[in-house]
């Protein structure tokens, strides 16, 4: 199981890769493993304003469904178009081609509240 060091994590099992004032968001390797085969991802539309900690979409596996929570407050500026047809990318490359959205952060101070890889690893007991 991978826990890349160049990204930040949330307690709800999302990750964020910060680049300037935007961040790319996905779910963690641990989360995809727990969910199993992901068959459908419902993501917020481009331009949607999202608020940290609030539900912004859902992710469906065969026998489980989970809310996606916004890791940061901001506006959705890009949505991964591949996931509509190839949701299995979330299983195959959770930190790569399985990314979900890019958000423009409203408050960069929120980044400090995210976990680093060691803290997240401790959270999931790995």
């Amino acid at each position, binding site marked *: 199981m991978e826990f890349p060091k160049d990204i930040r994590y949330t307690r709800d099992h999302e990750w964020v890769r910060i680049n300037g004032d935007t961040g790319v968001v996905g779910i963690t390797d641990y989360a995809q493993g727990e969910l*199993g*085969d*992901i*068959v*459908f991802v419902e993501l917020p539309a481009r331009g949607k304003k999202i608020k940290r900690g609030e539900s912004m979409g859902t992710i469906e*596996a*065969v*026998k*489980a469904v989970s809310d996606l929570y916004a890791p940061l407050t901001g506006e959705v500026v890009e949505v991964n178009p591949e996931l509509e047809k190839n949701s299995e990318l979330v299983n195959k490359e959770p930190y790569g081609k399985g990314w979900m959205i890019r958000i423009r952060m409203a408050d960069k101070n929120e980044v400090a509240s995210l976990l680093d890889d060691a803290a997240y690893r401790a959270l999931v007991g790995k």
Partner: protein
Amino acid sequence: MCTVAEQVRIPALDPFPRDSFERRHIGPDRDRISGMLERVGAASLDEFVDGVIPRGIRASGSLSFPPASEEEVLRTMRSIAGKNRLFRSLIGMGYNDTLTPAVIQRNILENPGWYTQYTPYQSEISQGRLEALLNFQTMVIDLTGFPIANASLLDEATAAAEAISMFHSIRGAQSGPKFFISEKCHPQTIAVLQTRAKPLGFIPVVGDHRTFQFDGSFFGAVVQYPCTEGTVYDYRDFCRKAHGAGALVVAAADPLSLVLLTPPAEFGADAAVGNTQRFGIPMGYGGPHAAYFATREEFKRFVPGRIIGVSVDTHGAPALRMALQTREQHIRREKATSNICTAQALLAIMAGMYGVYHGPAGLRRIANRVHILTAALASGLQKLGYTVLHRHFFDTLLVATEASKRDEIRRALLERRINVRWFGDGLLGISLDEVSDEAEVETLLRVFATGGASCPGAAGLLPANAGAYAGAMRRESVFMTHPVFHSYRSETEMLRYIRMLEGRDLSLTSSMIPLGSCTMKLNATTELLPVTWPEFCGIHPFAPADQAEGYAVLFAELESYLKQITGFAAFSFQPNSGAQGEYSGLLVIRSYHESRGEGHRNVCLIPSSAHGTNPASAVMAGMKVVVVRALGDGSIDTGDLSRKAAEHAPNLAALMVTYPSTHGVFEERIRTICDIVHANGGQVYMDGANMNAQVGLCAPAELGADICHLNLHKTFCIPHGGGGPGVGPIGAAPHLVEFLPSHPLAGPPAPGMTGAVASAPWGSAGILVVSWAYIVLMGGEGLTNATRIAILSANYMAERLSEHYGVLYRGPGNRVAHEFILDFRQFKQSAGIEIEDVAKRLMDYGFHAPTTSFPVPGTLMIEPTESEPREELDRFCDALISIRHEIAEIERGEADRDDNVLRNAPHTAAAVMSSEWKHPYTRERAAFPAPWLRARKFWPAVGRINNAYGDKNLVCSCPPVESYAQDPVPVTE
């Protein structure tokens, strides 16, 4: 009470006792019961039961009514049936007489190989009914013109309500809270829509679709096609107007009419629902019947109920399964699209088979014939001087009669034992059906030829009308082109097709199905025989009460028994499933609070371990779900309950609690739990799913419940039918009786009553006879013994298995209730084995897995019931113990961690007998891991199904035949 059974029974003190049904129903005999008691370390059955169920929660009295023999019960049943009077029903309103093909009646409806299965969660051993249900979906898709259909809903009215809920999920955010109901819908549909709308805050507006003007506050609309009076309206303009205003339209459409009429999808509707009863299902005084539900592709994630989908198995062969389950209550709970769980699988299978049997040409013949006879009747009535009120009809006429003629017409109809629909104002409705013929048209014309008027002969009326339906809404598109609807025309082929599919399903005719919380007990033949007697199955749900006096006796007696068993004051038989019972019960609680000026109470406390239907039902009843924690031992955390009940006291509406708990434990604090809720102003709803552990020993009303549903299809022997029918009557404490559901066709409701919750006043009346027969056969002591043995069997199995697995929760005296949970979670780490591998491996041993991963992920919940003999309990334990050894081999490194008997299970005959065998274990171990399998091997029809493939590529109609050809579909890993 003096029951009919007692009146008819031959006096007691018979020196030569009859055969006892109790010993036929209860699996283990006296000797084996002794052995089982010894194994669990109890001296007697009484001592054992006292140890399991603390005295403090035991029922105050015992059930005392006597048992009856099978022969006596059938005789009594004949006498009750004789009180029903069979009239020819031309009432219509969504129920029409039909000819059940005998090959379907005997080989499906009356065949335990089709009616004793559970819902097809274990798809590899359910391919038979999955294919039959796929046929049903394909038929619905073709008739309605929509690309997506589900595998049935409970009835037409609730299906229409589900469509409206779906529309609200899709459009509610943009539109206002209103939806339109055409006044020409069936009255029961209007009533159920109004009931369903209220708690959700939807505003129904009933009106004339021809003049109605939409505005932006409407999200949906319901129309009837043909309408309840028989007119075939063209709804194209109406749909355009609705869409223009942002509203979606559902058409409640008679499926037989769609053979001749433009399908709803083609005239612009967004969904279609309807009753498939007239496709070979007896009327049964209201049910059970299968409603259909079809809609557009883009709404597939909002569809309620089961959808059967096509996927592939590990070998790449096509295989069927339930698709997109994440919509459903068992996964999404309070966020589910609907609370529906049990549907009407058996009836949908029959309706689909009716389509297979007749094919499109046969259905066209039937529909044309009905229409032509109706046209002949219209023309004859006009010749007699009557006004037929509309020109465009399919099978139903609205006829105006002059006041001076009405009495004579009524008398003549009564003499000839014919029911029609009287609207008032001298208007009457006549619906012809598959059973109609020229003689019937002539009889009707003679009825209307009052005062000795000369009567035109039907034959003379026919030629002018011999063409097919020719109105503006005639159907042009082809339907049911799939080979399955063209391949089984002879009875020989039909019989073999039905039997071939039956052979792919594991049912109670093969082995025990120990599904926790599902009570897969014996459905005895005697209990089921009367179901297809004409006096029970031939009655229209809205027939005059004086023709259904046998049913009235049956309802009264069954209610009386259920009152004695539960301690409640009254029952409503209207709910058609357990989930619908939950929903109805919560509505009753709402009505009660409203009557006290406390209509604001809307918080429903639900333990985290509750069945998924509980939170889904609470949301449908307009309640807010607050989850109560469970303690480590599985019981409700009374501290958390007290806190939350107090915190929400001003708004507390109800607690939903299952008893014994979903963890299979008799919680000693149940009375305290009920007291806490009452003290904070709430009512207690008891989920009766586990009633099989209570009958005769505990009574829900005495434990503190205010209202409770019973699953007659679990505890009281109605078969599960492979996913329905279900029957979920609700029993109410005295203070709630006046709020039980009403029905517009069963007399005017008293003020305060809850509205209609189902199409028919007594729900699935046609199968209540099963539960009545079970209770009368067993007698009070027999029923109590059944409970005792159900609990003993669970404890016996838990005892044997606890030497090999962890048993998760135990109650007083270290005992379990009637079911228990086995823990498999450790094996993921130790052997790479998940619960699904165990469930699939059980198939190789000829068993259906117990409930998997509920209420605890990674576990099995086992409920043996009283009907399984000790030998069968042992065989199942032996299988699980053998599987434990197979896991141990992996743990010790003797078997491969990836390529082993569990991970590759189930093994099909084709895989085991293939020339290629590359696994490190033998073919023999794969397919014959236990000695008994030599004599009785059940082969799974397909290998492990790829669930993800099916959900990503939803196909819910029969795939083209080419896909069954040699080239396997590529398997995506």
